């Protein structure tokens, strides 16, 4: 009996690859990637980034870009799921991952505070009202668990995993889960200081890759128990079958060289799904285009799935959206599984001899019922999600 009891009834996404899912899939089909210099704030750093070009006005929150992005993706996912703006009649949980929205890193506020001992409280008020899960919960009047996960780059995937646990354990009937993050000066400086940001457009898994590009976005799934979906007359074709998470127990910023933590997380997600590795149709890899990430991840995927695996990284279309990445990439994986194709892995040209498999270089049709999305995070946490396609009656 395969584990298909938690259904995916809605998908929503916004990133540099598109401001909704249909637009994103069309850009994937056409191989279009939109990167460029930073325009959202002043910076001396020359790195290219993947900015969201336009957030629809109805979702804009003053000086709360991450929340604006999240609201955009949530609204699309709810619409897709046939749910409205008032969720008070349902038992709904909210699990969202982020990195930027959890910190009061307003430079002007801080500068004023340290120079004069005083500063206007407006940024503080926005920060205190800006816990992302709590904000969404208030906006949609939900009564259920609300969780903001701040687990660096696996935050979005871990949020989806937490929601899966809630649904399986009866804490809610519906969950909105994913991640959101804005492009922000502080992580741009921080990642730059670590020497892992590229001056060029990122090239995940490529021999000549020179690092990651930062991006921004939000990706949200509506997850639902079978009973709840049935009561609402929904018959979705997708489900979330498994989640695995494991720690490297190794280093604050570097992945464990043998990839044991990532492998453990993938094995757990497969076991959760009650499937074997050869049932995975494709992997949407974390694939940041840093030297360390891609070697470790590529070797683990090669070891588990063999060199013939259909694999891609979508960061060549979105940049690394940090806390949003797990959510954004789960939405991409679900949509690709539903449509039966994956886009070319943007930025990849030449095989790296240290990596036993290659990402796809063109649009690739996929068969089968399961997709895997992986996330690796600072702090050594690894997360894996398995998304399934239900057999229609």
């Amino acid at each position, binding site marked *: 009996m395969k584990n298909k009891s938690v259904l995916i009834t809605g998908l929503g996404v916004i990133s540099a690859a598109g401001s909704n899912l249909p637009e994103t899939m069309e850009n994937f089909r056409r191989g279009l990637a939109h990167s460029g210099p930073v325009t959202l704030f002043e910076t*001396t750093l020359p790195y290219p980034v993947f900015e969201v070009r336009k957030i629809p006005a109805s979702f804009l929150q003053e000086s709360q870009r991450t929340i604006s992005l999240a609201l955009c993706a949530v609204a699309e996912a709810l619409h897709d799921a046939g749910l409205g703006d008032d969720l008070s009649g349902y038992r709904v949980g909210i699990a969202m991952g982020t*990195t930027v929205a*959890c*910190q*009061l*890193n307003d*430079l002007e506020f*801080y*500068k004023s*505070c*340290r120079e004069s*001992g*005083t*500063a206007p*409280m407006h940024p*503080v008020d926005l920060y*205190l009202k800006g*816990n992302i*899960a*709590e904000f969404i919960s*208030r906006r949609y009047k939900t*009564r*259920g*668990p*609300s*969780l*903001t*996960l*701040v*687990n*660096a780059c696996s935050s979005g995937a*871990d949020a989806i995993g*937490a929601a899966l*646990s809630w649904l*399986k*354990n009866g*804490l809610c009937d519906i969950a909105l889960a994913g991640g959101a993050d804005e492009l922000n*000066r*502080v992580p741009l*400086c*921080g*990642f*730059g*200081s*670590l020497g892992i940001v590229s001056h060029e457009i990122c090239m995940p898994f490529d021999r000549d890759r020179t690092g990651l590009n930062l991006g921004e976005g939000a990706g949200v799934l509506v997850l639902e128990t079978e009973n709840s979906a049935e009561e609402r007359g929904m018959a979705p074709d997708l489900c979330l079958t498994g989640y695995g*998470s*494991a*720690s*490297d*127990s*190794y*280093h*604050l*910023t570097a992945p464990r060289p043998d990839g044991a*933590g990532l492998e453990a997380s993938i094995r*757990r997600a497969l076991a959760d799904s009650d499937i074997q590795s050869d049932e995975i149709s494709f992997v949407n890899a974390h694939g940041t285009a840093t030297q360390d990430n891609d070697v470790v991840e590529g070797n683990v995927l090669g070891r588990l799935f063999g060199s013939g695996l259909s694999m891609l990284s979508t960061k060549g279309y979105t940049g690394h959206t940090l806390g949003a990445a797990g959510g954004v990439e789960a939405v991409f994986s679900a949509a690709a599984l539903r449509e039966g194709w994956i886009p070319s892995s943007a930025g990849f040209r030449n095989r790296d001899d240290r990596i036993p498999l290659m990402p796809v270089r063109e649009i690739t049709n996929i068969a089968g019922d399961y997709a895997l999305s992986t996330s690796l995070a*600072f*702090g*050594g*946490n690894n997360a894996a999600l398995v998304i399934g396609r239900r057999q229609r009656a």
Partner: protein
Amino acid sequence: MNILGTGIVFTRGQGMDSFERALQEGWRSPGIVPSPPSIHEERRAYLVEHRTLSDRELMKKVRRADKLSKMAVIAASEALRNSTGEDINRKKTGIIAATALGAHVTTFDFLDNILEYGEASVSPTTFSNSVHNAAASYISSVLGTEGPTLTVTDFFFSFHNALQLAQSWLLEKRCDYILAGVTEQYGSVQAYVHDTKLTAAPDGRIRPFNFNPTFQVPGEGSVFFLLSHKEADKALCEVHDVLVNTDGCDVLRGDLDVIDTDGLLADESHYLQTLSGEVPVASYTPLFGSIMSGSAFTCAAGVRMLEKQMIYASPVKENPHGLNIAAETRPGVIELLRCIRYNCYGNKAVIYLRKK
């Protein structure tokens, strides 16, 4: 799920024995902390002294970590050590660290870097430590745990959220053991925000039963609990239920209500609605200070009370509403204890702890 071990770092030291001493001895005046020249009044806070973080074996493993992470590592290590659980399967041990403000002090250090040295010359070590999940990561690497390692944040309910998720993970057998807890660090920007938006206790006393007006004294520290369904015979107590923003928080009455009134809400009158005259009420926030995730400290007190079957006197006893407060330390039969917290939206979270 059961609590097998508890570890704590707070203003009066490290370890549950120190905490129990504080519960027995009662209130002490907070320390005076350095203020910027523009602040003319003295600032008080319950800070963790440097010598409390002096476990050399542990500290050399986290020598690059900030105070937030060091406190967390010490508390989590103690929770493991005093649980007789040193031999637990670390591959099946997860960590859920909860925090309201996270690494805000180190984040501001990083902003100092940007302002002083420019965007291209900032410290990668400071940046790495400013990431919210650094503390959980240090715990995992120091203790060698390989299970899921998460950090969650919420201004008032982060600890409750962590316990709820831990409960689910244990039920699913995703983990055999989970170290769940909180860590918070005091910082000068936080103090400025507190001074501006809240009322500092003029004599250093948090008055938990005043409700309005309220008075706060910032605190810092870390508390971790080792949770499991295994080894029930060794349990200190059971986490009977965790309810957040849902119906049913008042259905089950305990033998003692412990409230997290600490002056972090300008009006704490909501608490009056949930208290019953029949059940005595206590609050221990004046011992450790106003901490957004302070519910974990309250739970640590609850664990010790259930374990020892002692009701500790509320350290500040001003009682203008005539509540049935726990005013004296005395032996008592406690089967079920209810820890109550409200947030700024009037939502309530409750943790029930039950005697084993």
